């Protein structure tokens, strides 16, 4: 082989030359949309409390900066290292999920033990279940890539499920139903792509249903979660205070009409009628102030993001990369669908953040982590 040509070829295939610019661009746009929505959702209440109206936006900016660094770090080393160290990642995830349940170490709110308080920095909290989603995807990708058969055997499936079940249960018991749903979706999506037979998938679904019924029977599901579910299924007969969130969100999004009420002019948004409108319900701001066109634009951005992500899974050089990208894809897809779905009333209310738009540090960092992994797999598809 011509040395020079070979060098040129190698040069041509250097990872840095294959950064997915479209993915980066779409991510950047979503983050910017997020800032605007966040400012609209929070400036009035902050002002009323005598605080800087940019307080939350500033914090989100700081988080973004950390997120970008994290993304670059993750994208910089060869993702295949992850396959080797997946066990450590997994152990770390499980350990942090156990630690967060311990008194004095983990912090809780509304009965859920969920995060670590960073000492000395009041506003800095780390929610391990967020990171656990990516950690789980890494571990599962590594496990699936190691399988000896082209189609996973029943044993393989059981092995993978047991691996997934440990962090999943820890998250479920916090309780964090939203993240549990995302994790289940990641497992299901990765098993699907890994080629598990239809019969096995069906069996898994059946087992999940049995477990879910058991969870209800054992009282693991809290009352408020049941109420939310009931509000979703039988809305007409739900008391107004239980329905409140649902109703206000629908009014907000619905009142946006075709073109929206204009930025910073959304009535529901400026008057703070939708609870959690800066976190889980951030999409109400988009819907109310930018209308159907704005909502569709944001959906388009997510569609582009997912298109790039699935494309990366296709193009991956090895099975590990494919599975890894699949895991991240499913994570973004399920969060986007369940979150927006709940805001507009076609999904029950569960605490799932909208990637890049919802206010919240750990969720933001996890999303950047996901993009970092996607970039990594994409960059190294030739090497």
């Amino acid at each position, binding site marked *: 082989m011509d040395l020079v040509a070979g060098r040129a070829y190698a040069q041509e295939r250097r990872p840095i030359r294959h950064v997915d610019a479209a993915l980066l661009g779409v991510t950047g746009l979503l983050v910017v949309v997020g800032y605007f929505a966040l400012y609209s959702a929070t400036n009035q209440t902050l002002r009323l409390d005598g605080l800087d109206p940019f307080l939350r936006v500033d914090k989100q900016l700081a988080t973004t900066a950390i997120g970008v660094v994290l993304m670059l770090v993750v994208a910089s080393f060869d993702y295949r290292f992850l396959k080797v160290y997946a066990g450590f990642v997994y152990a770390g995830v499980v350990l942090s999920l156990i630690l967060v349940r311990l008194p004095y170490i983990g912090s809780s709110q509304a009965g859920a033990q969920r995060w670590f308080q960073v000492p000395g920095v009041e506003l800095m909290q780390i929610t391990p279940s967020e990171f656990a989603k990516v950690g789980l995807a890494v571990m599962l990708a590594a496990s699936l890539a190691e399988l000896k058969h082209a189609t996973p055997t029943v044993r393989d499936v059981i092995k993978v499920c047991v691996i997934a079940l440990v962090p999943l249960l820890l998250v479920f018991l916090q309780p964090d139903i939203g993240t549990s749903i995302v994790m289940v979706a990641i497992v299901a999506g990765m098993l699907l792509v890994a080629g598990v037979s239809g019969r096995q998938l069906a069996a898994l679904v059946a087992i999940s249903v049995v477990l879910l019924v058991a969870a209800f029977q054992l009282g693991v599901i809290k009352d408020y979660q049941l109420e939310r579910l009931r509000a979703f299924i039988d809305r007409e007969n739900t008391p107004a205070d239980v329905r409140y969130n649902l109703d206000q969100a629908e*009014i907000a999004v619905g009142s946006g009409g075709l073109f929206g009420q204009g930025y910073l002019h959304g*009535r529901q948004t400026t008057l703070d009628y939708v609870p959690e409108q800066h976190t889980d319900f951030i999409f109400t701001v988009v819907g109310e102030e930018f209308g159907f066109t704005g909502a569709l634009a944001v959906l388009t951005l997510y569609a582009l993001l997912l298109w790039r992500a*699935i494309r990366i899974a296709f193009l991956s050089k090895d099975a590990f990369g*494919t599975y890894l990208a*699949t895991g991240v894809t499913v994570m973004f*897809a399920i969060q986007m669908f369940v979150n*927006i779905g709940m805001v507009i*009333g076609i999904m029950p209310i569960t605490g799932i953040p909208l990637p890049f738009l919802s206010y919240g540090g750990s969720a933001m960092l996890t999303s950047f982590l996901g993009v970092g992994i996607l970039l990594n797999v994409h960059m190294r598809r030739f090497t």
Partner: protein
Amino acid sequence: MDRATSRLKVLATIVAFTFVALSTRLWFLQVLAGPEHLREARDNSLRTVMTDALRGDIVDREGRPLVKNRLSLEVRIKRDELGDQAEATLTNLSEILGVPAQDLGSQLETKLYYAYQPVPVAEFVPEEVFFKVREEPEKFQGVQVVEQSVRSYPHGELGAHVLGWVGQISGEELESPRFIGYGPSDLVGQAGVEASYERWLRGTPGREVFLVNSDGDVLREFDPVPAEPGHDVVLSMDLAIQRIAEEELAAGLERARGVFDDDTGRYLAANAGSVVVLDADTGGIVAMASSPTFQPRWYVRGLTPVQERYLLQSESAPSLSRATQITYAPGSTFKPFVALAAVKEGIANLYSRYQCPSEYVHPGDESGTVFHNWSEQVGGYLTIAEGLKVSCDTQYYAWGSEFYRMAVRTNEEPLQRDVRRWGFGRPTGVDLPREAAGIVPDQAYVYDNPDRYPDRLIPGVDILLSIGSGETKATPLQVAQAYAALATGELCRPHVVARIEGRDGEVVKRIGGGCRRIPYPETDLSYIRTALRSVTTGGTASSVFAGCPLEVAGKTGTAERGSTLIQDTSWFAGYVPADRPEYVVVATVEQGGFGAETAAPIVRNVMGRIYREPLCGGESLGEQAD
């Protein structure tokens, strides 16, 4: 890897499907249901608060106030200003109010008020509370002491039944179309003029619209519409005459209770009664007293259990106006109208004499029913005038029989038709609520009430009607209205309000009597008037009016109550001066015995005091005469 590729396509399809689902739902929510949601968003954030208008005053015909507004101090707490001082503030407040702090605290948990609205926790507090709160505002963070207007009655119970009272609107009223625009805590006239002129007195509430966020913080206040005070209502009632009527009614009842009644073998109960004074020309009610009575101011703070029992549960029903809401058999006060009907229908004439035996049996009646004259001492052949003067009953029985025969023959009821022309048997239309209609028994009434008339139509219906007895029922106001018509030749709708004035004193509306002529020849009317004059000069009421220089025409009445246990209703209806009538005065006393005994002296005294005629206001009692 091929398998992965095909499976990735499946995944991509699923993802694509989620976008379709979300976009479709958004289309429905935002584009199709958008306008509806926009309206909901607006309703969410706009809060309207009504401000009360100052209620109009009620004054007498000379402009003397009967019902006014007075300021009462109310303690309110602004919950959003309590802050972390809530406990201390409530403790301090409980000390000066003498109310447990816990009670104050629990009042704050109300959902009747929005977060930004102050919650009233104490009413009618003494002035010192106001000063204490003002002196040490730091101890009373979030506490306001504000002036609130409430009804005040400078003359106490005077005219209570006419004036009425105001109270919180009832749930039933709130739903009725009459009270559109009223809120659940609004005060509304519940009786008397307060109720019948509610529309004028109330005024127009002001309106403030606030833009509030989900916490109830007010972000913006839109131009408030100030409340417009209500109109003043000027009564035809005269404060001085009303006082006279009430005093004389009370004194008359008191006197009657000292009279022994032979029929029942006990003293007269004289438990209730009324006096009506009408302006003969206009139908304006100059005075209207009803006993027993009550204090309208009881309702200002809400009734105490004792007051509630007295007003609503006691048999004497003090809240009912005896003049308009309770009916009595009018007895012999009814006779002039029957006599005029008899003349009009050709049964009797002004020049003949009619036998006045001590008892009467309907010709051909073999049931053994005998109708007695009230006194066996009256007898002989009498003209209509002479019959009225001594109140002969049996003459009227004969005319009643004749009317009965006419009714059977012609299928018309001339007696009923004629007496109705004087306003009997239907509400007078007085501007006071819940007026009783009275009863003029006719064939329809008989058939509608088989329990009272087991034998169906019998001559007795018309015979008893002819002396205003039996089932015949009228309110004292109806009798007064009829006597005014007799005195002037015009039937007027009685009314207690003369006019409605704006705050600057301009007249907004005049209330008239809508008088119309009575269809009787003047000769017949003046004949009866002369006869009624003779009642006080030489007839049943002559001893009552002896020595009284006022020219009074009138008629006594003694109505049996259909039970030997209940004493007779005592009536006197008259007008003064006889030739140029100014006032019609009617007194009615439940269980008051003979008309001349109890009611006539009340009327004489009222008239005597109106005309400042001491010779008419003596203490002498009339003799036992109907």
